[in-house]
């Protein structure tokens, strides 16, 4: 029964996984570009974004097409509506990686303000959250999704540390450092936003698997 529809769902699954891999790669490369002051790699991230945008449209179209032609119900319906949301979140995540790459281009020709310690740490958390969120979607694993949601405060904390340090230890003491501090501040902010989008994915996965709405209900996690 339903072999054709199931095949189409599998195809959609693959495409969303591919979108997730591309978004992860964009984050990884943008942070590598920052660490290695690699202009070409940053430009690579910016240029690759059109591919991600194109895939977003393909996934969206497939979801609408499947809804229109099969009128899915129950678990299938939750999978498709979640798939559409995950798709949009991944596209936003990839855009934020582009934002990071643009900040890298602003910094690349200037001397480094300070050794990078917390931003790489934050990027490790962000990448792990994205990877786990995608795995939770692919494997319909609500427990893993819960772990993703619960790791978001750690990302917020690190962002605050970076922010406090850049503002108090650099910009407040020497306003001339602003042109190098602000891009770093924004990069921390972009990484923290990536974690927020990842949290959204994880909350949607919990709904998909358990039919339970945890979004805006932290007590339900």
């Amino acid at each position, binding site marked *: *029964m*339903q072999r054709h529809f199931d095949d189409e769902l599998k195809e959609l699954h693959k495409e969303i996984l591919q979108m997730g891999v591309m978004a992860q790669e964009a984050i990884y490369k943008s942070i590598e570009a920052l660490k290695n002051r690699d202009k070409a790699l940053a430009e690579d991230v910016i240029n690759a974004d059109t591919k991600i945008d194109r895939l977003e449209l393909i996934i969206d179209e497939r979801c609408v097409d499947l809804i229109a032609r099969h*009128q899915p*119900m*129950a*678990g*299938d*319906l*939750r999978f498709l509506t979640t798939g559409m949301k995950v798709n949009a979140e991944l596209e936003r995540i990839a855009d934020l990686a582009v934002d990071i790459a643009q900040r890298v281009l602003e910094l690349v020709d200037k001397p480094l303000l300070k050794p990078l310690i917390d931003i790489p740490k934050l990027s490790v958390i962000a990448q792990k959250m994205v990877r786990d969120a995608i795995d939770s979607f692919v494997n319909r694993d609500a427990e893993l999704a819960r772990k993703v949601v619960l790791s978001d405060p750690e990302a917020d904390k690190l962002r605050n540390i970076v922010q406090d340090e850049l503002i108090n230890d650099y910009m407040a003491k020497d306003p001339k450092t602003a042109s190098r501090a602000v891009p770093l501040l924004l990069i921390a902010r972009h990484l923290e936003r990536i974690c927020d989008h990842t949290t959204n994915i994880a909350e949607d996965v919990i709904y998909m698997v358990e*039919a339970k709405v945890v979004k805006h209900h932290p007590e339900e996690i």
Partner: protein
Amino acid sequence: MSKITTKNLNLWYGSFQALKDVNSSFQANKITAIIGPSGCGKSTLLRTFNRMNDLIDGVRTKGEILIDNEDILSQQADLVSLRKKVGMVFQRPNPFPLSIYENIVFGQKIHVGRVNRNALDGIVENSLKSVLLWEELRDKLNTPALRLSLEQKQRLCIARLIAVKPDVLLMDEPCSTLDPQATAKIEELMRELKNNYSIIIVTHNMQQAARVSDDTGFMLLGELIEFARTEDIFTKPRDKRTEDYITGRYG
């Protein structure tokens, strides 16, 4: 508020058990859909509510069916008043080979006896208005009902029921012979009617159940597997058998 309640309802056609311990509660002024694969017992359940199954040889029923807290399976139950209170619409519209007017007043003549012409005219007008046919047919009341379109015939059959002031409307696949446009009109009518009647619809069309009903019951092999708010049944059913059926993976 519960309009119809079944308690441990069992029904056999000879040695075949068609309903197994059905416990359910159908709410007043709501549309409840019963869904399930062919032969699951959904039409049988529907037909117990006005004891239509009594017409079949070898039928045996056990358990209780309470309508407004009265057990309609008891020896004392009055079948004529039960069928007046609980009307039924069938798959194929079945108007009598009479005029539109005579179709609508037919039930009045049986249940009430002699009624003066003015009162009958009022009943015809109100019944046709209830099914949104009055404007179309007010000048054609003496036309044979068999000349109407399928959808008009189905509406007329609903008007014929309404004329005898029932409380409950049972609908057994009422749109299965209609095209999508006519189906949409009947569904719209159902939404209008639920303000005054409790409606139970048996349908194979899951999209129809999802569109039109407030509550949905899923039946399988004579059992009521799951009964819940329609939005819950179609987005987050609790039972895997319900999920398999509504996602097309059953069987």
